[in-house]
C-alpha cells in the first residue's frame, strides 16, 4: 500500500503545471471543496490537489509522476456515485475526467460509438437517436452520470434483465495503467484472444486503471414499448407474478416493484395514478415489434389477473407510459420529500426470497426505529431499500448505517450480494468481509497488484485490508446473535 507521499503539494502542482493548463491544477481549498465527496455525501475528505487533464497523454504523464512518487490517484467522473468510490484520498490527487466530454465517432451501420469517458450516459442515446439507435444501460442518474463512471461501476438500470449491464454493452476501452502505459482492451470485434480483461476492468471502481476512451455497442430502438401496471394486496403475490411473467417466456424490457410506502410517496410526487391502497405495485414494460408487444402485453395482463392483481392498467400512449415511469423514476426524490434524509441501499437477492427479505426488513425497521421504503428491480433481484432518517438527530445516521449493514448481511445470508450496481467504494468495504473469505479477498488484492504494483489507484476502496476483516466478522456475528436473541424474546 501507499506510504507518505515523497513529494509536496507545491512540487507536485509545479510538475503538473508544466504540461497542464495551470488553471486546471487546483490546490486551494475553496476550489477543491466540491470534490470532497461524490453522491454519497456522508463520506468526505479533502484531497491534496485536483487535476483536470484534457488528453490521454496528459493522463499518462500524471500517472507516471504519481506512480514514481507513490501518490494516490482517485479518478472522478460526474461524481454521482453512491458508495463514496470517488471520495478523495487526503494525501492524493483527484483526477477529474470532466474535460473528456466528446463523442468521438458514431458508426450507425456497425452500431457503435467511440466516446470520451466524460460523455454523459443520456447524451449518447440522445445523439444516436437520429439513426434509430440508443445505448442500453440507463441508470437512474443517467442525466448526469458519465460513461467512464458507468464502466467503473458496471452500471445497470431498469432495462438490464433484457439488455444487460455495462459489461454487456461495451466493446473496448482505452486505458492508462497505474504505471502510465496506454493500452486498448477489447477491439471492434466481439471478443479478443486471452483473458477477458475488459470484463475485469468493468466494475473495478477505478482500482485497476484510468479509462480514457470507451467504445459502446448501440441497439436499434424498439418500434414500440408499453407498460402494464398491476397492483397487489401483498408483496408475496407481486413476487409470484414476477415469476409468472418469466415462466411464461416473456422477458420484459423493464420489471419494477415498489412497496406500499414507496407507492404513496411516488404518487404524491408524480401524480402517476398509482393504486394507493396497494401493498405492492409492478410496472412491467414490454418492448419490441408491434406484433410482439401486442402479443406479450395481452399475456402479461392475463398472468397478473390470474395471480391476484387487484388492479391492472396498460399504457395506451407514450404520454401515459412516461407518466407511469415518472413515478418510479422519481421514487428517490419522492421519498426524500417525506423525510429529511434517506440512505439508499443496494443489495441483490434471489427473487424467490423477496417476501422473506421484506418481512425481515419490516422487523428490523421496528428494532432500529427507522422507516424504510422499498423499490426493487424485480426482474434482476436488485433491491433498493431507502432508510429514512434525520441527520440532525444525534446518533440517527449511525443507527441508519447499522440498519443498512443488517440488510446487506441478510442479502448475503439468502444467497445474494452486498451491492448490485452502486459499488463497494468506502461505504460497503466492511461488508466485503461478510461476502468473501480471506483467501478470496487476498486473491482480489493480488489481482489489483497485477495492474497496480505500487497500489496508487484509489487505495482503501473496494477491497478491505485483511487485518480488519476478522475483527469486523466477529463484531457482526455478535450483533447478529444479539438481534436473534432479541427477536426470540420479542
Amino acid at each position, binding site marked *: 500500500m501507499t506510504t507518505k507521499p515523497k513529494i509536496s503539494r507545491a512540487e507536485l502542482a509545479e510538475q503538473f503545471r508544466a504540461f497542464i493548463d495551470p488553471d486546471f491544477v487546483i490546490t486551494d481549498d475553496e476550489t477543491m471543496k466540491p470534490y470532497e465527496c461524490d453522491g454519497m455525501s456522508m463520506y468526505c475528505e479533502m484531497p491534496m490537489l485536483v487535476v483536470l487533464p484534457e488528453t490521454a497523454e496528459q493522463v499518462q504523464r500524471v500517472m507516471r509522476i504519481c506512480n514514481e512518487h507513490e501518490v494516490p490517484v482517485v479518478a472522478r467522473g460526474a461524481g454521482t456515485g453512491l458508495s463514496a468510490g470517488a471520495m478523495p484520498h487526503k494525501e492524493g490527487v483527484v483526477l477529474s475526467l470532466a474535460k473528456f466530454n466528446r463523442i468521438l465517432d458514431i458508426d450507425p451501420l456497425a452500431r457503435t460509438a467511440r466516446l470520451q469517458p466524460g460523455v454523459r450516459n443520456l447524451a449518447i442515446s440522445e445523439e444516436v437517436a437520429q439513426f434509430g439507435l440508443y445505448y442500453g444501460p440507463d441508470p437512474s442518474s443517467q442525466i448526469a452520470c458519465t460513461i467512464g463512471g458507468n464502466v467503473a461501476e458496471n452500471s445497470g438500470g431498469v432495462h438490464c434483465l433484457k439488455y444487460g449491464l455495462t459489461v454487456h454493452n461495451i466493446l473496448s476501452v482505452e486505458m492508462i495503467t497505474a504505471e502510465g502505459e496506454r493500452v486498448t482492451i477489447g477491439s*471492434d470485434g466481439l471478443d479478443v484472444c486471452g483473458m477477458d480483461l475488459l470484463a*475485469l476492468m468493468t*466494475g473495478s471502481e477505478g482500482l485497476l486503471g484510468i479509462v480514457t476512451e470507451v467504445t459502446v455497442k448501440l441497439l*436499434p430502438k424498439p418500434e414500440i414499448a408499453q407498460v402494464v401496471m398491476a397492483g397487489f394486496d401483498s408483496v408475496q403475490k407481486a413476487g409470484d407474478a414476477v415469476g409468472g411473467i418469466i415462466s411464461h417466456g416473456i422477458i420484459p424490457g423493464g420489471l419494477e416493484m415498489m412497496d406500499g410506502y414507496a407507492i404513496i410517496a411516488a404518487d404524491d410526487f408524480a401524480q402517476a395514478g398509482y393504486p394507493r391502497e396497494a401493498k405492492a405495485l409492478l410496472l412491467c414494460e414490454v418492448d419490441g*415489434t408491434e406484433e410482439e408487444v401486442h402479443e406479450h402485453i395481452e399475456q402479461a395482463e392475463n398472468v397478473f389477473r390470474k395471480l391476484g392483481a387487484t388492479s391492472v392498467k396498460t399504457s395506451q400512449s407514450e404520454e401515459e407510459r412516461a407518466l407511469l415511469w415518472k413515478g418510479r423514476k422519481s421514487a428517490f426524490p419522492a421519498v426524500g420529500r417525506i423525510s429529511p434524509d434517506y440512505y439508499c441501499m443496494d443489495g*441483490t437477492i434471489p427473487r424467490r426470497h423477496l417476501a422473506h427479505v421484506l418481512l425481515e426488513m419490516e422487523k428490523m425497521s421496528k428494532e432500529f426505529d427507522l422507516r424504510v421504503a422499498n423499490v426493487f428491480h424485480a426482474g434482476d433481484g436488485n433491491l433498493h431499500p431507502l432508510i429514512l432518517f434525520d441527520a440532525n438527530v444525534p446518533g440517527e445516521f449511525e443507527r441508519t448505517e447499522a440498519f443498512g449493514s443488517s440488510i446487506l448481511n441478510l442479502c448475503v445470508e439468502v444467497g445474494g*450480494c452486498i451491492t448490485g450496481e452502486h459499488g463497494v467504494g468506502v461505504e460497503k468495504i466492511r461488508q*466485503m468481509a461478510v461476502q468473501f473469505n480471506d483467501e478470496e479477498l487476498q486473491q482480489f488484492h*493480488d489481482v489489483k497488484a497485477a495492474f497496480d504494483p505500487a497500489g496508487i489507484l484509489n487505495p482503501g476502496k473496494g477491497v478491505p485490508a485483511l487485518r480488519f476483516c476478522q475483527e469486523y466478522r466477529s463484531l457482526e456475528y455478535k450483533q447478529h446473535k444479539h438481534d436473534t436473541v432479541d427477536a426470540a424474546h420479542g
Partner: protein
Amino acid sequence: MADISQTLKEQILQARQTGQKLNIEGGGTKAFMGRAADTDAGTLKLAEHTGIVEYHPVELILTARAGTSLAEIEATLAEEGQCLHFEPPRFGDGSTLGGTLACNLSGPARPWSGSVRDQVLGIRLLNGRGEHLRFGGQVMKNVAGYDTSRLQAGAMGTLGAITEISLKVMPKPAMSLTLVQDMPMDDVIHYMNSRAKEPKPITGAAWVDGKVYLRLAGAKSAVEATAKKWTGEVMEQGDQFWQQLQHMQHDFFAGDEPLWRFSVGSTAANPDLDGPWLIDWAGSQRWYRGEADIARLETMAKRAGGQVSLFRGGDRTDEVMHHQPRALKEIQQRLKKSFDPDGIFNPGRLYSWL
C-alpha cells in the same frame, strides 16, 4: 453426479509440492484448441465433477459443476422450455460447461443473445494454491469485488480449474424461421449489418457458399410479420443449418486444412485473402481455411479492427493466438502469477509465455 472438488484440491496441492504441471481436462473434446499441451504434465480431470447443483427456472438461473455436459444441461433446461441462448458449440458428446467458459465458445446467436461470458454470474475456482474460491454469485447484478468470473472466459484454464458455474438462462423463443438468398460476398457485409440495425427479432446472420442466411426468432407474430417484409425465401429445415453452424458440422469446417478465426469489426471489409470463407455473427466472426502465416493475418485482422487466431489444425507448437502488446502481456503474466504462482495449470496452452 459427484462433487470431487476435494480430490482435485489434493491433486493440486501435491502437484505444487512435487513441481508437477497439470493439464486441465473436461470432456476432452477441445484438445485441438490452443497450443499443443505439455506432454510432461499430468492431467487434472474434471469429467467426473458433474451435476446440476441448483436450477430455478423462474429465476432464470442455473448452477452446475464444471464437468457437467452441455447435453445434460440443455436437456434439463428444455424440460422447462428454457435454453442456453448463447448456443454453445459441442464438439462431441462430452463437451462440458467448464470447457465452454474457459474457451469462451458461443454460437450463431452471440451478437444478439450475448456470449457464454455474458451469461456467467459466478464461479468457483481452484487456484494454484489449491484454494477453492467463490466469486460472483447467483444474482444477475453483482459488483462486489472484481469480475474474476468473466475473466476466465478465454483464459483456457491458465488461471485455475473452474469447478462450478452459475449462469443466466433464457426461455426458448416461441418460434424461429430462416430466410435464405443468393448474395455475393462483396455485398453481404453491408446487407447483414443493415438488417441487424432494424428493430426486428433477428438472431442469426451468416454467409457461406454464395448464400446469406438470416434467422428470425421470438414471438410468432413478430417473426412472421418480419419474414413477410424482408426478402429471401423461407428455408425448409432452417434450424438444421444453424445447428450445423453452431457445432461446426457444416461442410465448410470439414477436413484438415488450417481453420482461422477472425474476430473483427462487423462492418470491416473482408481481408484480401483467397480461399474459402464463412461469415457469421453479422460480420463479427469470419472463418478462413488455408495455410497462412499468422503475422500476415494479424496485420489483416488489425486493419479490420480485431484479431485472428488459429482455431484448429496447422502448427500448434508456435503461437496460435493473436499476439498481445507488451503492457497487456505483462499484466496477464502477473495475473497468472497471482492465481497460479507456481505455473501449474495448462503451461503454454494459451501463449508460449504463459
